[in-house]
């Protein structure tokens, strides 16, 4: 493996790990705030609603017409 | 982003690097140094201002800093506003009131005329009678202490009645919190302009009537003796209110009561505690109107041990949730107890009979009355209590307003002002600040004067205040007392109303007793602290000053309070803290009026302390631990023990002890144990009281006693009240003898007790 690419790869991995930790930590903070405020059900309901709408949009999206077979 | 802005940026950067003309420092460096310097100054200034204050409050710790901040925030959130009482213009003109001994009811009267006679039979203990349920405990579980006790006790009848009380005959000047004259009112709604001198209206009390014409504050004084049991029939007549007095907005709203003899060795049915009253007897917070209860005071030391004898009890209301307001409203009585037992190794006659020719020869000249009572001259109780009088403009506001307990006219609820109550006692439940008054009374009189002879006296001090702690000294002064406002004081510094600017200590106290009675070795003190419900007894010799000179006729000596306590949390200044040389508040003026025979002696040895098992340290791991804490609930501060409010239906559970157990607060009869009482911090002091028996303080803050902690010299004696400074912890040795049933332990800052700082415990067979 080339040494000129080791450094950037290590930095990328480090950045990714830091980002992952950060995201999880942020989630923990947000969940705590939501729990404290007693809005857990509201938040879960909102997530469920958004998810539901997203699923509907995916399934209601017009699909591409099928290719008609050509005579060869 | 364009090159121009980059160029600008680089120019700015270079400008940042340019030294300033004055300092020759780059601006960037200047900013950094400035920030560091500002931080250093801020930290230094804050430390010098705050650190001493935190140390004084016992909050100089990582947690303490937060507690101090929470305290400050709580003071802003919870509205607890006190009025400023009108200034008494002629202090030390009303005579000191020494209660006369109450008279027992003649046997012929109660045995013939009373429908419900006192007795040991089933259901005879109270008006609820025999309910058929043996657990109801309406029966005296023990009728005698000593076998040699008479079969028939002395019987007293005390009626709780609505009546009036006057604290002073002096004219008063209504003032505001800055000490300036202000307007005042009367019951008819008339407004008096600022500067008008007034006569105070009588305050309404729930007082005790011991057979006289009316109820008094303080109530009757029962002079009792060991070996002579007493039944006190307390009758609740608070619904009668024959004078149709306005009972205002404090006191138990249903006028129930529950009387506790503090700290008699008493069976639970006669103890007057809410753990009993809610689970047995009346099954209520107290005895309702028209109820009666026979409290049997056996006048018998725990375990029949003479060394457990005490000397000064008092009885007061203990109604759940309204103890403070009921006590403040007047339900207080005194109960000195004497010891007729002879010990020839000490001297002939009863050891402590109130006769200075017998036994210990403590000051006292006894007169036996025909009705079976007796009085003792030169043996004087001092019941200290502080009050606030309504100014007519302060909002009446506390948590109880939400309970519909005191609806005003047309059903309107408080909070509101009450100009019609101007000059009458003001009380609200203030659990955050505690309740401290600005008028200091002794035996119900504000700033009394007492004539004394040049001889020794026995003074029995009791702190009957809701929250205030006193530190007392004997002082003389070259100038008379001056009104605090005339000296330029305002706000909380007006508490006590008067100062003794040139006061100097002139006499000492010879301490002879604490809560638990006579101590082994009397010792001299320049001053002493008196915490709520604590009792201290001293010999004061008015025949000579501490420098050995003799007082002249008409010399004046003042009993002076030198502890400044603007709120019920703790003191700000005292001798063992940061003394305030300007805070000398005279409470009683003694005037030397002549000589009198004095056959008393200065004792060098009194009563030994009772036995404590030598292996008490083996109990350490199994001890029960109770920590007092602070929380918030229902829009007010609540006081907790081990995280819980008082539950009258259950006994408390200890915190985990070193043996990793959490025992219930339940002890077998005849057992002994160590209990740890901890002050959970927050900067409050707590006078923690335990019913039923006195305890011994074995350790304070991890150190074995004796020697006693310098702040608490009375730890070496037996007591019923642990004085806890902020953050302190004590380990006490307790015994649980002679009775079974439910009791309580609680803070005797009654603002805390009423807001749940109490726990139930019990003795089981």
């Amino acid at each position: 493996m080339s040494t000129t690419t080791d450094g950037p790869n290590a930095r990328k991995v480090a950045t990714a790990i830091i980002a992952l930790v950060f995201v999880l930590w942020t989630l923990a903070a947000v969940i705590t705030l939501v729990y404290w405020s007693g809005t857990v059900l509201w938040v879960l309901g909102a997530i469920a609603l958004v998810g539901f709408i997203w699923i509907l949009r995916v399934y209601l999206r017009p699909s591409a017409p099928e290719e008609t077979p050509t005579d060869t | 982003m364009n090159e121009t802005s980059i160029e600008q940026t680089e120019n700015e950067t270079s400008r940042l690097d340019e030294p300033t003309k004055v300092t020759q420092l780059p601006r960037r460096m200047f900013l950094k140094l400035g920030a560091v310097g500002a931080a250093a100054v801020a930290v230094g200034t804050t430390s010098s201002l705050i650190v001493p204050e935190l140390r004084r409050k016992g909050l100089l710790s990582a947690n303490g800093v937060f507690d101090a901040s929470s305290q400050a925030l709580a003071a802003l959130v919870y509205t607890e506003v006190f009025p400023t009482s009108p200034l008494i213009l002629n202090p030390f003109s009303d005579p000191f009131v020494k209660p006369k001994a109450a008279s027992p009811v003649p046997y012929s009267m109660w045995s013939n005329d009373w429908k419900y006679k006192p007795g040991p039979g089933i259901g005879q203990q109270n008006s609820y009678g025999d309910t058929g349920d043996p657990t109801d405990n309406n029966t005296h579980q023990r009728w005698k202490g000593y076998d040699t006790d008479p079969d028939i006790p002395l019987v007293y009848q005390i009626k709780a009645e609505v009546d009036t009380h006057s604290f002073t005959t002096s004219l008063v000047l209504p003032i505001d919190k800055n000490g300036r004259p202000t307007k005042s009112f009367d019951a008819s709604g008339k407004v008096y302009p600022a500067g008008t001198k007034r006569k105070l209206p009588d305050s309404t009390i729930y007082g005790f009537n011991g057979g006289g014409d009316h109820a008094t504050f303080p109530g009757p004084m029962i002079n009792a003796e060991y070996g002579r049991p007493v039944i006190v029939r307390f009758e609740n007549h608070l619904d009668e209110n024959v004078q149709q007095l306005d009972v205002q907005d404090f006191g138990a709203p249903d006028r129930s009561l529950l009387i506790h003899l503090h700290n008699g060795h008493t069976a639970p049915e006669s103890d007057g505690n809410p753990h009993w009253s809610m689970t047995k007897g009346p099954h209520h917070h107290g005895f309702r109107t028209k109820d009666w209860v026979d409290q049997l005071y056996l006048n018998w030391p725990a375990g029949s041990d003479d060394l457990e004898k005490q000397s000064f009890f008092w009885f007061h209301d203990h109604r759940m949730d309204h103890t403070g307001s009921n006590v403040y409203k007047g339900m207080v009585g005194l109960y000195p107890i004497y010891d007729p037992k002879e010990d020839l190794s000490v001297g002939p006659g009863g050891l402590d009979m109130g006769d200075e020719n017998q036994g210990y020869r403590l000051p006292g000249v006894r007169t036996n009355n025909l009705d079976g009572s007796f009085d003792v001259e030169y043996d004087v109780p001092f019941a200290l209590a502080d009050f606030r009088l309504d100014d007519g403009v302060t909002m009446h506001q506390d948590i109880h307003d939400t309970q519909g307990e005191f609806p005003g006219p047309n059903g309107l609820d408080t909070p509101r002002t009450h100009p019609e109550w101007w000059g009458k006692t003001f009380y609200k439940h203030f659990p955050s600040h505690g309740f401290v008054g600005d008028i200091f009374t002794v035996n119900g009189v504000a700033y009394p004067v007492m004539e004394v002879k040049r001889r020794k006296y026995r003074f029995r001090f009791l702190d009957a205040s809701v929250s205030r702690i006193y530190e007392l000294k004997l002082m003389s002064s070259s100038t008379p007392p001056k009104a605090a406002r005339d000296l330029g004081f305002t706000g909380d510094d007006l508490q006590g109303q008067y100062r003794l600017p040139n006061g100097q200590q002139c006499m000492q106290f010879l301490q002879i007793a604490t809560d638990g009675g006579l101590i082994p070795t009397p010792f001299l003190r320049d001053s002493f602290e008196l915490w709520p419900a604590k009792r201290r007894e001293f010999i004061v010799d008015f025949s000579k000053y501490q420098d050995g000179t003799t007082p002249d006729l008409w010399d004046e000596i003042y009993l002076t309070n030198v502890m400044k306590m603007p709120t019920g949390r703790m003191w700000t200044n005292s001798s063992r803290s940061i003394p305030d040389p300007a805070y000398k508040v005279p409470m009683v003026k003694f005037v030397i009026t002549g000589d009198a025979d004095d056959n008393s002696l200065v004792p060098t040895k009194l009563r030994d302390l009772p036995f404590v098992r030598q292996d008490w340290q083996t109990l350490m791991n199994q001890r029960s631990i109770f920590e007092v804490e602070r929380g918030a609930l229902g829009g007010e501060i609540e006081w907790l023990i081990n995280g819980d409010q008082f539950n009258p239906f259950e006994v408390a559970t200890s915190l985990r002890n070193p043996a990793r157990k959490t025992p219930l607060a339940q002890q077998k009869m005849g057992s002994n144990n160590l209990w740890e009482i901890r002050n959970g911090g927050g900067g409050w002091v707590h006078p923690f009281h335990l019913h039923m028996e006195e305890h011994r303080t074995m350790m304070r803050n991890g150190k074995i006693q004796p020697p006693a902690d310098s702040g608490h010299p009375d730890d070496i004696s037996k007591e019923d009240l642990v004085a806890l400074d902020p953050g302190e912890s004590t380990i006490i040795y307790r015994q649980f003898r002679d009775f079974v049933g439910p009791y309580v332990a609680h803070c005797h800052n009654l603002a805390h007790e009423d807001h749940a700082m109490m726990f139930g415990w019990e003795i089981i067979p």
Partner: protein
Amino acid sequence: MDTTFTRLDGAQRRLSVYWLTIAFFAVVIAFGDGFWVTSVQGAVGAIERNDPPFDRWLRDSTLMLPLFFLAVLAAIVLGRRWFGGSRSRLLKFGATALLMVLFTSALAITEVAASSAYDYRLQSRDLASVHAFHQTIADTAPGATTTTGRCVGICAEKQLTLHSHMKALRIASVVLLLSNIVLVLWVMALRSDRIWRSNQVPARAPSEAAVGRGVTGAVLS
């Protein structure tokens, strides 16, 4: 996976901020505001949450740290976007500082509000059990009329509980704003040269980065 790593790295570069500066801001403000959050909880909070306050402060402030980090980052990025082109240094720094104060204070106030809401729920639950053996309006003075249809008893105590929380929140909001102004300005003064990084500076190899920092310093883009 490699694509993800590359994207993350690219995003980090595009933001072009001094991460250490942001972290420093976040730590100072999170723990500074955490002091007031803990103090409020100690003043009006539920009995069940009566932990030693120092431990609670450490725990809760650490937990909220990433949110403060995001608030500071947002303030700096928005400050650069909206005011970066201005000639006035005072406007650039001042506006960014103001954004930072507003964002972090809003977050801290949200934290206090959420914590108070939790306390209120715990206290409301306690009131019901405690009220069972305390004074009720049925036990009023002889002859007094009870008030029907009015909020008394537990209802009134809940109202008072809520009122005390609202009052504490109002006081805390003011205190938080004021203390954040002080903290933000203080950190800004300390890190005045490390607030923004130009986003036009090309990506450098690690060996050149140290040289680059020494040459350009804080570049306002």
